C-alpha cells in the first residue's frame, strides 16, 4: 500500500510539471526527511549509482545509433525490402515491418524507428494502396520493436539494476522480437491486398548497390550481437566496437556524414545520455528511501503470504507496469519498479531474464497505448492525421502485443530457450 501511495504521489508531482529525475529525488528526500530526519552520504550514493562499467554501454549504443541515423541507412533498407516484396500480398506493409525490425536493432529506439521508417514508408504505403489505418498501425507497431530487438538500452539498464547478464537478456529478447515482427507481417498479409502498381509507375529503386549497402547496415546488429553471443565482447565492448563499425560503414559505404554531422551526433548522444541517466540520480535517493522503509521486503512477505503464485504475481505486475507505462517512459519504469519487485521475484523464483523480456514487451505496449503514446504522436506529426484515427489504427497491434505477453507468461521457453542453449544458465 505504501508503495502504491508513493507511486501515486510521484505521478501527481510529474503531472505538476516536474521532470522525472527531480520528481523522484524530491519525493524520496521528502519521505526520508519525514521518517528518518536526515539523509546520509547523498553525494556518494549519486556518484556510486552513475559510476558503473555496464552503464558505459548506454552512451556508446546511443552514439552508435546517432551515427547510423545520420548515415541515412533506412532509405536503402526500405527500398531493398520493398523491391523484394512488391508482388506479395501486404508486401508494402511487410517491407515496413522488416525495415522497422532492422532499424530497431540499429537504433535501439522505438520512437526513432517509428519516425525514421515512418517518414519514408507511410507515403509509399499509401501510394501503393495500403489503407491509412494499416499504414499508421504498422509503423507505430513496428516501431515498438526498437526496445525489444537487441541491442536495447532499456535492457542494459535492467541488467545493471538487477545484476543480470546483458548477453542473456539480449539473447532472450531476440526470438520474441522476431516472433512479434512475424506476427505484424502476417497481420499485414491478412488484412491488406497486393501493392497496386500501375504499369508505368516508377518503383523505389533497389539496384545491386542499394541491396549491398543494405547488407552493410544489416551487418551492424549481426556484428554487435554476434560479438556478445559468441563471448568475444562484453556488452560495453560491443557498444564501443559497434560504434567504430558504424563509423566505418557511414564514412566508407554510405559517405553520408561529415565531421560536423558526427560532432553533432556526439553532442546529441551526450544529451540523450544525460536525459536518461539523470533519472538514475533521482533513483539513487528513491532506492535508498525504499530500503530504509523496508518496502521491498514487506511487499515480498505480503505477496508470499497471499499465495497468489508466480502467474498471479506476474499478471498483477504486468497490469501495474502497463498503467505506469501510460505516464512514464521505460527507464523510469525500470528504476521505479525494480527495487520493489526484485525481492518478490526472488521469493517466487521468477527468472530475471524472463521477467526482463516480459517487462520490455509490456513497455512496448505502453509506447502505443493511447492517450499518452510517443509512437502515435510521431505518426500524427508525420502525417497530420487526427490523433483519433491514429489511435484506432494501433488497436490490432496492442492486441498482438498482449497476446505476446500472455504467450510469454504461459511459455517462458520462448524467451529462455536461446540464452540457455547458448550457455547463459538460469
Amino acid at each position, binding site marked *: 500500500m505504501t508503495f502504491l501511495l508513493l507511486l501515486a504521489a510521484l505521478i501527481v508531482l510529474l503531472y505538476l510539471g516536474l521532470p522525472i529525475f527531480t520528481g523522484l529525488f524530491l519525493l524520496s528526500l521528502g519521505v526520508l526527511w519525514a521518517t528518518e530526519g536526515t539523509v546520509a552520504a547523498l553525494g556518494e550514493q549519486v556518484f556510486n549509482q552513475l559510476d558503473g562499467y555496464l552503464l558505459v554501454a548506454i552512451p*556508446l549504443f546511443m552514439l552508435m545509433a546517432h551515427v547510423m541515423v545520420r548515415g541515412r541507412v533506412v532509405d536503402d533498407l526500405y527500398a531493398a525490402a520493398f523491391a523484394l516484396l512488391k508482388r506479395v500480398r501486404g508486401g508494402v506493409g511487410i517491407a515496413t515491418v522488416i525495415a522497422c525490425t532492422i532499424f530497431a536493432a540499429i537504433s535501439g529506439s522505438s520512437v526513432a524507428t517509428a519516425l525514421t521508417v515512418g517518414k519514408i514508408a507511410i507515403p509509399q504505403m499509401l501510394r501503393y494502396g495500403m489503407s491509412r489505418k494499416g499504414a499508421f498501425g504498422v509503423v507505430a507497431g513496428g516501431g515498438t520493436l526498437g526496445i525489444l530487438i537487441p541491442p536495447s538500452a532499456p535492457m542494459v539498464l535492467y541488467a545493471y539494476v538487477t545484476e543480470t547478464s546483458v548477453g542473456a537478456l539480449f539473447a532472450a529478447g531476440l526470438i520474441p522480437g522476431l516472433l512479434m515482427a512475424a506476427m505484424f507481417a502476417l497481420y499485414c498479409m491478412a488484412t491488406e491486398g497486393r501493392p497496386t502498381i500501375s504499369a508505368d509507375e516508377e518503383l523505389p529503386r533497389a539496384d545491386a548497390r542499394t541491396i549491398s549497402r543494405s547488407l552493410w547496415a544489416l551487418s551492424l546488429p549481426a556484428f554487435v550481437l554476434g560479438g556478445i553471443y559468441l563471448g568475444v565482447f562484453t556488452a560495453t565492448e560491443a557498444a564501443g566496437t559497434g560504434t567504430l563499425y558504424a563509423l566505418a560503414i557511414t564514412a566508407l559505404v554510405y559517405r553520408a556524414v561529415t565531421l560536423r554531422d558526427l560532432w553533432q551526433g556526439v553532442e546529441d548522444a551526450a544529451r540523450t545520455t544525460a536525459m536518461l541517466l539523470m533519472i538514475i540520480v533521482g533513483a539513487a535517493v528513491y532506492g535508498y528511501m525504499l530500503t530504509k522503509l523496508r518496502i521491498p521486503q514487506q511487499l515480498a512477505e505480503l505477496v508470499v503470504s497471499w499465495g497468489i503464485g508466480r502467474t498471479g504475481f506476474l499478471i498483477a505486475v504486468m497490469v501495474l507496469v502497463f498503467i505506469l507505462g501510460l505516464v512514464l517512459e521505460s527507464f523510469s519504469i525500470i528504476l521505479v519498479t525494480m527495487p520493489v519487485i526484485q525481492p518478490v521475484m526472488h521469493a517466487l523464483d521468477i527468472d530475471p531474464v524472463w521477467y526482463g523480456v516480459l517487462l520490455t514487451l509490456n513497455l512496448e505496449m505502453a509506447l502505443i497505448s493511447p492517450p499518452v503514446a510517443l509512437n502515435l504522436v510521431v505518426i500524427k506529426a508525420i502525417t497530420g492525421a487526427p490523433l483519433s484515427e491514429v489511435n484506432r489504427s494501433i488497436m490490432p497491434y496492442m492486441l498482438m502485443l498482449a497476446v505476446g505477453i500472455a504467450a510469454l507468461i504461459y511459455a517462458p521457453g520462448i524467451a529462455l530457450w536461446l540464452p540457455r542453449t547458448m550457455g547463459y544458465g538460469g
Partner: protein
Amino acid sequence: MNRLAALLARVAVALSGVALVVCFALICIGVFARYVLAMPIAWIDHVAGWLVVAVVMLAAPEAQRRFEHIGVDVPVGRVSMRTARLMFMAGILSVLVVAAILLIEGWETVSFSRMIGMGTNLEDVPLWWPQLLIPVGAALLLVVAAAQALTMLRGGRPEHLPDTPNDTPRDLLARE
C-alpha cells in the same frame, strides 16, 4: 545571466562530448589491447565509468537549457497558457532545488573523501577527483535553472521553452 548560462551550458556539453569520444576511444583501445595484443588494460574500465559520470553531469545543464529532461508532457499540452507557464516554472524550480542539494551534498562528499584520503583502484588517483564531477555538474545545472527561473519571474520566455510539447518527441534520435 541568460548569456552566461547558455555559454556555460554549451561549453559543458562540448566537454561532455569530448568525454564521450574519449570513453569510446578507450573502450576500443581496451578491446584491441585485450584481444590483439593479449595485454588487458585494467584501468580503462574504471576510467570509462568516470567518463560516463562526466558525460551525464556535463550534458545535463544543456539538456535543461533546452527543456529536454524527461517528464510527463501531456498535461502541459492540455491546459491554458497561464497554467502551462506555472507548470514549467514548477519544473524549473524543482531542478533548481535538486541542483542546489546535489551541489551541497556533492561538495561534502568530495571534502570528506579528500579529508580521509580515499583512493581509487588506480594508484595516485584520489576518489575526490571523479567525485568532483557531481558538484561541478550540479553548479552548472543550478546556473541554468536560475537563469530560466529569473526570466520566467520577469515575465519573459526562456530560450527553447516548448510551445506544444507533444509535437516534438524528446528522443533526440527522432529529431534528425
